[in-house]
């Protein structure tokens, strides 16, 4: 029996195929675990659904960024040409908005793209120089190459080191190890 230490991050199990990982993620959810995470070297189709992940906030952030870029860009040009430095060119209207569309469009795309990238990074909590999982040698060696991992985390209410280890072994996980944060 392994003792549950205060700095235990969780229990990690390794799987050979993505199908085993999806299966394990489903079973973990059915078993009542909520704080667990799957790791894969590429985006596995069906994994988000198996883990019950809901729609994320990246699209909303992108929309807001795009609107800010577009509206900000348009009204900035309006302010420059109509208020800050009005220039009468052959009596043409100061609010010559069709000529501002290209810049407005570009700034919409710029605002949306910057928000998509930085929003994604921020929601993912990246950059994050250290993570307890990097202490596990097999994880560092295989998680970004050819293996699939499932980690049941210690902050889960239902977490018990021995139970979780047995649960992962029951799912045919290999190299079930305790992840320690130190």
């Amino acid at each position, binding site marked *: 029996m392994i003792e549950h230490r205060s700095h235990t991050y969780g229990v990690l199990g390794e799987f050979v195929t993505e199908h085993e990982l999806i299966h394990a993620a489903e079973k973990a959810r059915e078993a009542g675990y909520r704080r667990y995470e799957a790791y894969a070297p590429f985006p596995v189709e069906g994994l988000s659904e198996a883990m019950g992940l809901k729609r*994320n906030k990246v699209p909303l952030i992108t929309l807001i960024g795009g609107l800010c870029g577009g509206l900000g860009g348009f009204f900035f040009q309006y302010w420059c*040409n109509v208020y800050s430095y009005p220039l009468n060119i052959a009596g043409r209207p100061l609010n010559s908005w069709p000529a501002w569309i290209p810049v407005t469009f570009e700034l919409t795309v710029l605002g949306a*793209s910057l928000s998509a990238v930085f929003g994604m990074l921020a929601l993912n909590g990246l*950059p994050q120089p250290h993570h307890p999982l990097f202490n596990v040698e097999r994880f560092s060696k295989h998680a*970004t190459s050819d293996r699939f991992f499932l980690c049941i985390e210690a902050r889960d209410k239902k977490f018990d080191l021995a139970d979780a280890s047995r649960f992962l072994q029951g799912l045919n996980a290999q190299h079930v190890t305790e992840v320690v944060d130190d």
Partner: protein
Amino acid sequence: MSVSEPPLDSPEIRRLSPVLAPGHTYATVTDKIAAIVLTRRVSLGWLAGFGIAFTMVMVLNLAVGWLIIKGVGIWGINIPIGWGFAIVNFVWWIGIGHAGTLISAILFLLNQKWRTSINRFAEAMTLFAVACAGLFPLIHTGRPWMAYYMFPYPSTMGLWPQFRSPLIWDVFAVSTYGTVSAMFWFVGLIPDLATLRDHAIGKPKQIIYGMLAMGWRGSARHWHRYQSAYLLLAGLATPLVLSVHTVVSFDFSVAIVPGWHTTIFPPYFVAGAIYSGFAMVLTIAIPLRAAYDLEDFITMRHLENMAMVMLATGLIVAYGYFFEFFLSLYSGNKFDVFLVQQRLHGPYNHFYFALILCNILTPQLLWFQKIRTNVAMLFIMSLIINLGMWLERFVIVVISLTRDFMPSAWGRYSATFWDYATFAGTLGLFTMLLFLFVRVLPAISIAEMRELVAETTEEHK
């Protein structure tokens, strides 16, 4: 394009030339691609190529340095031909960049699997081409240290840029394009940087790749958001890439100069950009796959598909030339009619005929599958198309400017040594950056290749 073959996704074609050679697993694609960067020794060929490119960059430094000392008078430009090589090269380079975005964004949205092994270096090509392109308008201003005048900033003079001018649209279009391309490329790189971090031997490499990977560990929640962000970026880059060359064409078509003032310019410029870009992707892909044994990943199917895209966009470009010609005659505008005559019989008509030969006649060979699957022929063809697209911009810029409305304002243009030195220098810069890129970053997306392995093994079951 009606080709008398089964559609590309039919099992027959896939068996003939798959997008990924059979027998690969997650580990083999990872090791094979990562090894190019991590364990492969610097070869003599690489050193020689890098050395030549580096020398050309020194030529660029010299040319730009001399330009800064003496001013744009060292070039062949003068009134009435204020736009010489600088603008020709600018439009040419920015067009080349477009294929990278097309491959990475549009083919991604269209779910084309064959894009996977070529998107990474095509995106790198985009970035480097945009860098070369951006240099030209900058040094063409004559006082590049004043370039910040073009951006809206609260100056003490209380002035703002002229937002109604296509030249300012260009500033926004090109800088947005550069920024978004760089982000798209970097986001695609993050999982691969994590792979390199985990496979690198030695502290310096681990630390550098580790910092760039930002702690990526392939968590499902991260992938979930990552995929949303990547899809959104692809969706944003698609209209962006179409807008960039449209805005570049506005530089010409908003002016009233004969030969420039036509509504066909935006679509015809975009098609030309994709055409030249695919030619450049082939120019790079063919030596790359040979030098690094990447035939398993960049297969004949990729080369053939790219050849077909070139043929299709080449035909659109031919259609553009035809209608440019036809509409000038049909308009009855005597200046436009005169310009057509000048293209055919004027002092630069040999450029025009060379352009038709390179861009319209030669690519018709691509109708034959024998040619499309002949690597050496494709390489030569890609060089010819690159040359042809450069000639196209030369014809547009120079013939129109030398022959505008009044005979008293006519002139002649010829490039000087420094024009050629600057152009050759940017070719060197582009090549040098590509050489560095294949040595320090994975030239093929490893994470996406793993996805392809998963998909292809699924299909074989």
